[in-house]
C-alpha cells in the first residue's frame, strides 16, 4: 500500500477510536474494549476497500459488512459517520431513547448498516446468506464479517463455517478479532476456542493470521483473500482496549463506560494519537 494511503487509514483508525470512546462515554454504557481493537479493520474496510456510497446506501452491488460482534458498533458507527452516512454529531445520541444508533446495529434504523446483529453467532450466518445470494445472482460484491474470539464459542459460528466451505463462498471474508478477552476473562480460561487457525483450516477455510493493528498486513491479507477460492478468515491478533493505556488487555473494559476522570485521560491519549496521525499524514 502507498505510504500516503497508509497514513490516511492510520488517521481514520485514530478518529474511529476517539469517536467510539465519545459514544460510549456519552451513553454511560457500551463496549469500548472490542470497539478499540477493531479500529484498523473497520478503517481499512470503509476507507480503502469497500465499495459503498453514503448517498446510495442500499445500492445492490455494494460490498457488505456484517458486524457479527454487534456490541462493538461504536467503531462501525464512527466509520459510517466519518464516511458521511449520517452527521458526526449523532454519535452523541448512541444508546439514547429515540436514537438511530442503537445499542446493537439496526439495519432498518441507520443507513450504512448492512445487517441487524447483536446476538452472537448469527451475523456470520447472515453473511453466508448474503455471499451465497451474490454468487447465485452473479454479483461480484464481497461480503465482509467481523466475529469475535469469544463469539467463536457459539456453536452457530461452526455451523456457518461448515456452510461457507460447503458452498464455496469465496466472496466471504471474515475477520476474527482475536483480542483474547471476553467478559469473564481470558477466552482460554473461560472456554478455550483455540487453535482457531487450525479449526477454520480443518473446516475448509483459507486462514491467515496477522497483526490486526497493522494496516499493511490487513491489506496484504485481504488482497490474498480476494484471490482465494475458499471462504477466508483473517485471524487478527489485537489488543482489547487498544489506544487507551488503562483499558488495554483488561477484560473489565469489555462492556462498561469510563467515568469522567477516566474519560479525560482516555480522550487525552486518543486525541494525542489522532493529532499525531494527522500531522504525520500532512508531513507525508
Amino acid at each position, binding site marked *: 500500500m502507498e505510504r500516503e494511503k497508509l497514513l490516511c487509514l492510520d488517521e481514520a483508525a485514530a478518529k474511529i477510536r476517539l469517536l467510539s470512546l465519545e459514544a460510549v462515554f456519552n451513553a454511560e454504557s457500551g463496549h469500548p474494549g472490542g470497539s478499540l481493537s477493531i479500529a484498523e479493520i473497520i478503517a481499512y474496510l470503509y476507507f480503502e476497500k469497500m465499495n459503498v456510497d453514503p448517498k446510495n446506501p442500499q445500492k445492490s452491488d455494494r460490498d457488505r459488512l456484517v458486524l457479527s460482534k454487534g456490541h462493538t458498533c461504536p467503531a462501525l458507527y464512527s466509520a459510517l459517520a466519518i464516511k458521511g452516512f449520517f452527521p458526526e454529531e449523532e454519535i452523541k445520541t448512541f444508546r439514547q431513547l429515540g436514537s438511530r444508533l442503537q445499542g446493537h446495529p439496526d439495519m432498518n434504523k441507520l443507513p450504512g448498516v448492512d445487517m441487524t446483529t447483536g*446476538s452472537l453467532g448469527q451475523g456470520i450466518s447472515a453473511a453466508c446468506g448474503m455471499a451465497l445470494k451474490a454468487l447465485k445472482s452473479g454479483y461480484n460484491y464481497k461480503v465482509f464479517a467481523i466475529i469475535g474470539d469469544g463469539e467463536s464459542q457459539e456453536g452457530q459460528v461452526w455451523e456457518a463455517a461448515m456452510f461457507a466451505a460447503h458452498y464455496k463462498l469465496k466472496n466471504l471474508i471474515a475477520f476474527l478479532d482475536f483480542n483474547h478477552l471476553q467478559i469473564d476473562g481470558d477466552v482460554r480460561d473461560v472456554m478455550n476456542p483455540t487453535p482457531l487457525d487450525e479449526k477454520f483450516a480443518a473446516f475448509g477455510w483459507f486462514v491467515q493470521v496477522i497483526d490486526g493493528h497493522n494496516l499493511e498486513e490487513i491489506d496484504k491479507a485481504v488482497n490474498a483473500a480476494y484471490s482465494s477460492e475458499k471462504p477466508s478468515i483473517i485471524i487478527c491478533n489485537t489488543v482489547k482496549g487498544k489506544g487507551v493505556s488503562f483499558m488495554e488487555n483488561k477484560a473489565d473494559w469489555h462492556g462498561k463506560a469510563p467515568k469522567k476522570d477516566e474519560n479525560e485521560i482516555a480522550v487525552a491519549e486518543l486525541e494525542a494519537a489522532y493529532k499525531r496521525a494527522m500531522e504525520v499524514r500532512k508531513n507525508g
Partner: protein
Amino acid sequence: MGNIINTDMNLKRVATRVAYGNALADFGEKYNFFVLDADLSGSTQTAIFGKKYPDRFINCGIAEGNMISVAAGIAASGVTAFASSFAMFACGRAFEQIRNSVAYPRLNVKICASHAGVTVGEDGATHQFCEDIALMRSVPNMVVVNPADATEAYFAIEAILNYDGPVYMRLGRFAVPVMFDKSNYTFELGKGVVLADGNDVAIFASGIMNSPALEAREILAAEGIDAAVINIHTLKPIDKEIIIKYAEKTKRIVTAEEHSVIGGLGSAVAEITSEFCPTKMARVGIEDTFGTSGKAEHLLDYFNLNAAGIVKKVKSIL
C-alpha cells in the same frame, strides 16, 4: 367467504406439507425466491422445488439456527427466502435466530414448518411441537398462519409470497380431509372465515381442527344446538372483528386447535374477548402436556382433538 366446502370429506386426504411442496414448485417460475431446508426436504416436501430449481434450493444440513440466519442474509440481499424443517427445530430450536435475525429486522423470510402438533405420530414427544404458535405469536412483526387443509395451504403460500415481511406457517405431516375446492378458493391473510353460521355457540377452529369442528356441528345440530364454525387460518394478525361479532352473537365460544391451550388460538381469542366482550368459553387443545408415540389418528382421539372432544366442550358451557 364463498369457498365451497367439500361435502364428502372422506373422499380425499392430503397433508398440508404436500400442498406446500407443490406450491413452491408451482410458484417458482412466477416468483423469485430461495428455499432452504435442514436435511428434511423429503419430509417437508421442499425437495419437489429442489428438483425443479436446484439453483435456488439450499440444503443447510442439520443446523437450523444457521439456516434461519442464512435465510435472513438472503432476504437482506433483497430476495425472499423460505426456510423449512420440522416445527420443533425450525421454530423451537431456532427461536432466537427467528426473533433476532428475521423478525426484528423484519426480513422477508417465510418459515414454513412441517410436522407440527401431535400428528407427527410415532416419533413421539420430542418431535411433537405444540408450542410453536405460542412462541411465534409473541414475536413482534411476525405473521402466523395455520392452514386448514391442502387447498388453503397452497393458496396461503401465494398470499405470503405477496406479503412483505416475516411469516411463520404451520404445516402438518398427517393427511387431512381436503375441505376446500381448489377451483374457486380465495385466501385473505388475516381474515377469519365463517364455514357455517350458527346462533347458539361459535366454534373457532384453526388448522386441521376445522374438519372435526364441522363434524361436531353436525352432531350438535342433531341435538338441536346451532353452532357456527369459523376458520381462523391467520393467528396473527387475528381477525378481531369476527371474534367480537360471534362472541356477541352466540354468547358462547369454543376454540379448537392441535396446539397447547396455552398461547395458541384459545389464548388469542380469550385475549380479545376478555378485553372487549367477556364471553363464556372453553378450549379444545393439548392440555399443557407432552405428546406421546402413536398413530396420528389414535393420538387425535387420545388427546380429545376430535368432534367428540369439541362437542363435549360445547356442552360444558351451554
